[in-house]
């Protein structure tokens, strides 16, 4: 078997990261929306993500695990350069993870405190992830401008997660809360547009190789499909939430699907721009790859486990399909 193993693992890692961003994105988004809802709505919001958040975060472990395992040298460079935002993200993820459990058991002001920490943790983790994305695509260059840029990407990724969270709530709730979520989704959409624009503008400016790839006629024309598709998906979110607002017939999963489409297209664009680098302009996936013996051993596991994983994940989502109900532990 003559497989390009680094390429296979780069694909798997990308897939894991995209799964993470979409899946944990919606539950982080729901966490950030908590302060905008009243107490009974908060119960429903939490119930809508309760069975899933744990498994969603596992995709992050898989994504960073594959980076660690398949591209060990790049892992050291990337995580070394992102040391503090990684620590901030981890503290955020810890706070929200335990706050989720604690708030169910708490009463009165205790519950308010945990709600607050759940919101804060969700926000901190999302912001840190966006900040890391901003640093990563600018090649970790020092300087005020780059830091400011990373902060902007951090803020706009929060908006992106809010979009995912709001559209998830449109799917999982009804009535007043769903109506609120329709409004939140449109705010999130504005932010995600900013995020996509920022990242798209920055990569060719920062990197010669990205620039060369983008402005290489006639390939540029084919590439134009990506921004057009993003625009279409954005319009799809806008139109479908509009129809739901006006109570016109419209399946409630459509806004979420459209939001996922935005993330998937943006991700495809990013992957196309960066490829074959794992650290932009510094290290390709083949330079960073682990020994073939290690990659082969892992591939066996991936081939066996991944279908099972997809099957039981699908099963879990099927079990909890339909609108969320309050009273999680009952």
């Amino acid at each position, binding site marked *: 078997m003559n497989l390009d193993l680094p390429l296979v693992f780069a694909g798997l890692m990308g897939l894991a990261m995209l799964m993470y961003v979409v899946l944990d994105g919606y539950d982080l988004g729901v966490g950030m929306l908590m302060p905008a809802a009243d107490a009974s709505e908060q119960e429903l919001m939490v119930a809508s993500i*309760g*069975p*899933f958040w*744990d*498994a969603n*975060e*596992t995709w*992050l*472990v*898989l994504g*960073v*695990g*594959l980076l*660690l*395992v*398949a591209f*060990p*040298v790049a*892992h*050291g460079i*990337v*995580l*070394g350069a992102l*040391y*503090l935002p*990684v*620590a*901030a993200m*981890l*503290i955020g*993820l*810890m*706070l929200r*993870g*335990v706050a*989720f*459990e*604690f708030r169910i*058991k*708490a009463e009165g002001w205790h519950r308010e405190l945990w709600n607050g920490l759940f919101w804060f943790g969700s926000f901190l983790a999302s912001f840190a992830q966006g900040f890391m994305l901003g640093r990563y695509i600018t090649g970790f260059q020092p300087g005020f401008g780059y830091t400011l840029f990373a902060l902007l990407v951090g803020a706009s990724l929060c908006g992106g997660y809010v979009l995912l969270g709001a559209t998830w709530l449109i799917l999982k709730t009804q009535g007043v809360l769903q109506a609120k979520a329709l409004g939140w989704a449109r705010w999130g959409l504005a932010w995600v547009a900013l995020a996509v624009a920022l990242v798209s503008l920055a990569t060719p400016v920062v990197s010669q190789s990205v620039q060369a790839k983008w402005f290489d006629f006639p390939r540029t024309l084919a590439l134009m499909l990506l921004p057009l598709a993003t625009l279409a998906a954005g319009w799809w979110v806008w139109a479908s939430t509009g129809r739901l607002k006006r109570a016109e017939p419209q399946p409630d999963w459509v806004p979420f699907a459209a939001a996922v489409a935005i993330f998937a297209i943006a991700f495809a664009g990013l992957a196309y721009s960066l490829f074959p680098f794992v650290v932009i302009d510094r290290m390709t996936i083949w330079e960073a790859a*682990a*020994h073939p*013996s*290690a990659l082969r*051993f*892992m591939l066996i*596991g*991936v081939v066996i*486990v*991944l279908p099972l*994983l997809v099957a*039981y*994940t699908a099963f*879990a989502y099927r*079990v*909890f399909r339909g609108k969320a109900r309050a009273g*999680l*532990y009952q």
Partner: protein
Amino acid sequence: METPEVLLLARAQFGLNIGFHILFPSLTIALGWILLYFRIRYARSGDPAWLATYKLWTKVFALSFAMGVVTGITMSFQFGTNWPGFMQKVGNIAGPLLAYEVLTAFFLEATFLGIMLFGMNRVPGWVHIFASAMVALGTTLSAFWILALNSWMQTPAGQVVQGGQIIAGDWWQVLFNPSFPFRFTHMLLASGLTASFVVAGLSAWRLLRAGDDASARVTLRTGLVLAAVLAPLQALVGDQHGLNTLEHQPAKIAAIEAIWKTERSVPLVLLAIPDEDGRRNEFAIEIPRAASLLLRHDADAELKGIDAFAPDTAPVVPVFFAFRAMVGIGMLMLVVAWWGAWATRRGRLPPRWMLWTLSGFTFSGWLATLCGWLVTEIGRQPWLVTGILKTADAVGGASGAQLGASLTGYVITYIAMFLAYMVVLTHLAGKGAHA
């Protein structure tokens, strides 16, 4: 190589994280199986009391599991941020083992946990039991991979050097390296004891608060019987693990027993204050020739001392004391478990002072487990991977200031998390199970 401060901070941070993390898996690995037992008892009897018991302990499990997940994610990042040299040197072996843990264990437990916690009314009974079994299996599989990796780092086997890289020649040998069977069994039993004492201790707490409670009586008995069975097994396995260590990591045994010089007829040091600079023991209480007898089954046998391994020796003081604390706590646990099992025979309710004792022993398993890990992790220093990579050569990436700042953040977060965990746990246990 980085400055000593960076090494110290990196170790402090990783040690804090891994020490905090291990508390929760060591509880949930066995608690998962105990929950499955409760769930099956409910399925067979249809008795709502078993259901209430199951639900109460599910909450304890979920809380502990979440603590384990979030601190575990932190660790997966710290491998890279604190020890880049580790992955560069042995990443071709350590990486796949970690990846297999994520693939086979993390997703299994995290996904089925959702169904186990929230899906009881949404799936048929057997599917729910299956989900509970998958959660228990997932936590145990997770321990399998992590213990395989840790054991390989202690007693490497199956690796070859190819083109300057260390790769696995034989994965089977890597997984089932010499210390793995002992370490894995030792850890599973440690988890069994930790969980059974938590179950017994929190049930005793409930009985103290409520006077009497049928569900708490049953779980008290379950925890005590389990502990009474596992404690002597653990003593046996621990002894075998020690002999295995003598064979493969004699330097660690020298540190554990504070044997400074290689000689024949070595006494067993029960207690002493080891003097690292003077390379001798102060105020030693010894049994003549007992160490030779115990470790070699021959009172005149020679044992290698710390001098035989210089300069690559571990600090003696922490290893020596942590080992004695582990054994001491373990013995106390055995006595308490047997005593408690006797006192609860045929449905008897133990006297209040005994319930207080049991409550006091709730987290004894944690203490013993932490001491055990301190022994094995400090005892292999200065090696990170025995004979292959030194800890000092693996550190790097972050500056002292970054490490210090993030360490402060972690310490504050962990203290807050731990306090909240304890408050909620005592609160849950005090309220007891409600049908």
